[in-house]
């Protein structure tokens, strides 16, 4: 694809004048004037993307907002009728037993995943920051878990964590542990297992970004700190960490925004079960719409998710701006 795009025209081909040289135009404005035409052409570059964004992001958000106030079920698809029901959907969603669980699970899932990914990702990034033979190769192989489809990871872990024949229990058995926990089937363990898998998925991303941030810390600062007697942990605490903070902010907030809406990995591992033990706001929105075909309630649940994301979106934009200004990347 890119080959084709790159080969569209050889750069050395002489540039024949296609457009007449701009005459001295009168006052700007009007699409007939060369200046106006130029401006129209410039807009033309942007219009397809704007249209796409409107249809595939703008419309769904507005439509979802409306659907949240409508009785939108399978019947709607046949009759085209979706009566307005005010706040009924929200009342139904919020008063259901699952809502509290889903909210708590979302918070635990997000906080646990981010904390684990970040701490382990940072530790590995710091480790790889020291140059050693084959370091670059190992670091790039580390990306693999992040690049394969999430549903593949879900399937693999589902089998590793299987109660009777999974690799984990097999390993624990070899170590002499008699107990065979049902990692994904016990209500007390399932959420922990799902978080652990999600941490595994997120480590490569965190490592890569934080590694990039570490590379940007000037070597001279470490030398100066060493002269002042700060090495090892103290150098990290007083030199690395303050300079890394803009990158840290971006990684954390981006991590939260992506983790809140995770669906693939939970559906693949547990489908929200057992007994809603791993049900989150996102998976519950999916279940309401696409399993129970109560699209109105699904939309209401989705809107709750948007509000949560929006809070972090604002944080993200602030952090991003600071990183762009401060980090200079």
């Amino acid at each position: 694809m890119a080959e084709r795009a790159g080969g569209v025209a050889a750069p050395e081909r002489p540039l024949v004048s296609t457009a007449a040289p701009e005459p001295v135009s009168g006052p700007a404005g009007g699409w007939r004037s060369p200046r106006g035409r130029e401006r129209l052409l410039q807009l033309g570059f942007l219009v397809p993307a704007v249209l796409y964004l409107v249809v595939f992001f703008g419309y769904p958000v507005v439509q979802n907002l409306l659907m949240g106030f409508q009785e939108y079920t399978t019947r709607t698809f046949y009759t085209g009728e979706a009566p307005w029901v005010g706040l009924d959907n929200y009342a139904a969603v919020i008063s259901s037993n699952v809502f509290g669980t889903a909210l708590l699970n979302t918070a635990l899932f997000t906080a646990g995943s981010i904390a684990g990914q970040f701490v382990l990702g940072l530790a590995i990034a710091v480790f790889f920051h020291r140059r050693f033979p084959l370091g670059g190769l190992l670091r790039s192989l580390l990306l693999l878990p992040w690049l394969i489809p999430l549903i593949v990871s879900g399937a693999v872990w589902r089998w590793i964590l299987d109660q009777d024949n999974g690799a984990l229990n097999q390993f624990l058995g070899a170590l002499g542990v008699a107990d065979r926990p049902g990692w994904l089937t016990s209500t007390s363990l399932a959420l922990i297992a799902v978080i652990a898998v999600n941490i595994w998925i997120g480590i490569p991303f965190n490592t890569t970004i934080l590694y990039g941030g570490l590379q940007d810390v000037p070597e001279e600062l470490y030398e100066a700190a060493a002269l002042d007697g700060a090495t090892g942990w103290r150098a990290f605490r007083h030199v690395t960490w303050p300079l890394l903070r803009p990158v840290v902010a971006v990684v954390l907030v981006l991590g939260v925004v992506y983790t809140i809406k995770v669906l693939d990995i939970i559906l693949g591992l547990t489908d929200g079960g057992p007994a809603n033990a791993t049900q989150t706001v996102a998976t519950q929105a999916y279940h309401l719409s696409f399993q129970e075909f109560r699209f109105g309630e699904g939309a209401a649940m989705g809107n709750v998710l948007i509000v949560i994301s929006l809070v972090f979106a604002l944080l993200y934009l602030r952090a991003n701006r600071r990183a762009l200004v401060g980090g200079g990347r």
Partner: protein
Amino acid sequence: MTRRRGWGSTLVGVLILAVLLFPLYWMLNVSLQPSGSAVRTPWIPLDLSFDGYATALREQGGNLVTSLVVSLGTVVVSLLIATPAAYALARFRVRGAGVVLFAILLSQMIPGIVVANALYDVYSDLGLLNSVPGLILADASHGIPFAIIIMRAFLLAIPSEVIEAARVDGAGQIRTFVAIVLPMSRNALVTAGLFTFLFAWSDFLFALTLTTTEQVRPVTLGIFTYIGTYINDWSSVMATAVLASVPAVVLLVVAQRFVTAGVASGALK
């Protein structure tokens, strides 16, 4: 840092990697075991068998082709829409450019399930459910914002003299873009294209919500329906998983520098 470490660190690095990549090894291991009852799996596939792959290709081969077609289509659509936009956002002083950039950043926060929830109805009316074009258009929503962001960052770095020189020589806006800018942006196009492919290939949500029959079924959904039922043949499930991981492995081996660049720029721009 210039503090060099020796092979001791390499050993530790290999150990870290071994732990982190164990699940992928396990996937390969199980996929090469003889199929049959799910008794405890040996740690090494001594009794090598490709039955799992035979079953996987027989049952999921069509789904793999669907995934490939959808992913390639998504790359074409995404780059066609994103490249001119990235150029406009990097080069032109268009009114509202700031708003568009802001909208692109904001679009990253919109949960896929919300998009799917609203699209389902429209798709049903337009007959786009269970169709390759429907999936391509939906999957492009992963690729287009990302492609615009990384290509814009790249295009900002092209010296304006180059573009002005072409303009002075009389090249029109479109000609400058096609003959000068695109050839110079090969690396950015490759990076954006690779990631768009991976996003579309990995898509599960739209496959799950916007298809209802087996007619058009990407392999991610194929795997999900596999593990949704009672499984007594994990070797073919894992063989499918291995086949579905091939693009990621190929990309990492063939285009490692593009991939690392993409991860870094995608997060920080």
